[in-house]
Structure formats: C-alpha cells, structure tokens
C-alpha cells in the first residue's frame, strides 16, 4: 500500500499541475481579453458567445479535436482545460472592470493617471473581488475535468480511474476518484479563503468598532 500511496501522491501532483497550468494560461489570455472587450463594447457579444461555446463542447469530443493537432501529450489536456477555463475568467474580468464605479475612473483620470495607470492602480484592484469569483470557478472546472484528460496522455488521477474501469476494480476507481473529488472541494474552499486574503482591507466589510461618528 505504501508504494501505492506514493503513486497516488504523484498523480495528485500531476492532476493539480495540469489544472493549475490551464488556469494560469487562461488567466494570461482571459484577463487581457476581458479588459479588451470592456473597452470595445462591440466585441462583448461575439467574444462572450465564443468563450461560452468552448464550454459547451463535450470533453471527449474536445480532447479528440485537440488530439488531432497536438497528439497524445499533456499539452492536449492543458489546451482543452484552458478553453474550459476561459469563459469564467473573461466574463468575470469584463464584469469586474465594467462594474467599477465611474467616479473612480473620473477621479483617476482627473488627477492625471494614464490609461495604463488607471487600469493597474484603480480598475484591476477594484475588479479583483469579482475576478476572483471567476478564477475560483475556473479552478473548480479545471480540477474537476482534469481526470478525463488522462485519456489524452496528460497523466493525473484519471489514470487510476480509467485503469480501474478497465479492470473493473472499484477500489482502484476510488483511489483515483476520491483524491480528485477532494481536490475539487479544496479548490472551491481554498480559493474562497484566498479571496478573503486578497481582498484589500478597504474593500472588506467594516468592523463597527472602527467607525467614528463625526463629520
């Protein structure tokens, strides 16, 4: 059992790595896309339609399509997960940026911030709370769907599940499925905690003791 435990740990690592790289790439692409469409309203409809359509493509078919181009490599798995993660990230970035109080933008511009400074110092920090909701959703999707990516040779806990199906061994299926489920739950709650940590104090609920009544 000991060496099994080692193997499971290793696969859990692969699983996480797969999911996290997908989220990372989705962030690298999705945040700029979200910012872009917040500035060019004509693009909002089409872009959201496309990223939403990616999400609709069934995983097995998507893996197949990606495999045609990328073969049986971890890249195939990461690519498919990347496209699944794009929607929540693009959407939450867009929503986050467009829901920043226009007075903030006016104050920023009025005091002489460049567009880039306004984005970096005002819009993104203020959009962060909403963006984190999207990042959490993306992570949950990535961790949850990573199991199937083993089909495309991406490794991870899915390997155990598929091997278990082949040999009709419930324990083996469980050995893959339970850690995968735990990871998904951890992603959900872990990022919730991260959200609270990353929210600047000024945006959190005020502690009543801090408020002073005076003009």
């Amino acid at each position: 059992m000991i060496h099994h435990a080692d193997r499971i740990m290793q696969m859990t690592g692969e699983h996480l790595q797969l999911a996290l790289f997908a989220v990372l790439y989705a962030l690298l692409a999705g945040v700029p896309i979200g910012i872009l469409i917040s500035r060019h309203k004509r693009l909002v409809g089409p872009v959201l339609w496309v990223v939403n359509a990616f999400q609709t493509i069934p995983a097995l078919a998507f893996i197949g399509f990606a495999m045609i181009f990328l073969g049986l490599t971890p890249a195939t798995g990461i690519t498919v997960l990347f496209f699944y993660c794009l929607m929540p990230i693009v959407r939450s970035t867009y929503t986050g940026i467009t829901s920043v109080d226009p007075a903030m933008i006016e104050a920023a511009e009025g005091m002489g911030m460049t567009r880039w400074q306004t984005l970096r110092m005002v819009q993104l920090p203020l959009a962060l709370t909403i963006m984190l909701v999207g990042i959490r959703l993306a992570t949950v999707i990535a961790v949850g769907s990573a199991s199937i990516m083993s089909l495309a040779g991406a490794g991870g806990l899915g390997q155990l599940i598929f091997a278990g199906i082949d040999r009709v061994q419930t324990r083996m299926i469980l050995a893959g499925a339970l850690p995968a489920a735990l990871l998904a739950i951890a992603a959900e709650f872990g990022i919730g905690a991260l959200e609270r940590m990353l929210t600047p104090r000024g945006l959190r609920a005020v502690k009543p003791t801090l408020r002073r009544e005076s003009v």
Partner: protein
Amino acid sequence: MNEILQVLKDPQTQAMLRTQVVQHLVLSLTSVLLATLVAVPAGIWLTRHERLASPVLTVVSLVQTLPSIALLAFMIPFMGIGSAPAITALFLYALLPILRNTYTGIQGVDPAARESARGMGMTDRQMLFMVELPLAFRVIMSGIRVSTVMIIGWATLAAFVGAGGLGDMVLMGFSMVSTGHIIAGGVPVTLMALLADYGLGRLERAATPAGLRVSEGGH
C-alpha cells in the same frame, strides 16, 4: 482529409452513427427528464423546509465534485454495464443545477407578489402555480439548460460503461488513431450540445412572461 471523407462516406460508419445519435439522445434526455421530475418538486419542497435547504444542496453539490467518469464507473459494481448505470449516474449529475435554480428561483420571488396573492385569497397550490412558478420559470429553465448541455457532454463517457452513444465513435477514433472517427463522433455531439444551449436559451426567453423580460439576459 481523404481519410476523413472515407470514414464519413462509409455506410457502416453511417449506420453506426445513426444508432449512436439516437442512443445519445435517449441517454441524455432520459436522465435530464428524470432529474427535472425529481429536482423541480424537490426544489419547491426545499423552499417550504428552509432548514433542510443548505444541507441538501451541499450533499447534491458534493456529487458534482466527483469526476463524472468516476461516478459512471461507480455504477458498474451495483448495476453492471449498459444504459441503466449510465442514466443513473447522469441523472445524479443533472440534479444539482435544476435543484439549485428551482430553489433560488422561487426564493427570489418578490415577497410582495406572494403577499398580494395571499391577500386575494389564493391557496398554497394556486400561489405556486399562478405566482411562484411563473415568476421563477426563467431561472428554473436556465438550470435545465445548464444540466442538459452538461449531460450531453458527459453522456459521451457513457461509452465507458457500455451504454453506447457518440462517445463510442470518438473512443474508436482514439484507439484506431483515426481522425475520421474522432470527427464523425465529435462534431455531431458538439453540435448537439451547442443546439441544446441555443434552443433552450431561446425557449427560456420566449417563455418568460413579457413583464419580466430584460434586454440582456444571461446566467
């Protein structure tokens, strides 16, 4: 390219495809339909038993954290292989979005609307059918749409438990390293999911009482 056309033109593939499309539709629609029949009343019931809402929703969402492929595989020891275990697993998967949306949809009905219904002498039943369900309809429909699209996708995995469906064709493509088979199975199932998303989205909007329609929807 040639290879793809060859596969697609092959009458044997075509016959297989037809069966698989039907299988796929039956698998997905049956599980979503069953899930709707269970989850909508259950969601309504939860709005009447608030204390149970949170634990029940938590348990149902735990099912969702299990990798879909694992849930399907779990069914084998209990139910063997075939459509029964596949439909059971897909059904469990489809529950959450519908249950959650029914619950929040009815929860979200303006208390004023409820009160005036009460005030004009509606019974619980009349209030449910004449006020709460119509007002929550859009949210419930959107849960059904999300479930349907998701289930059409996961039904491809039913192939692993011997339930057929378009997943068979794609898996055949994997094992034969045949682009043609991957396309032959992958494209129809993708179209099916996109169409379901679009069609149910349209239905959602069309069936929304005119007074509730907003210019830009989305869920």
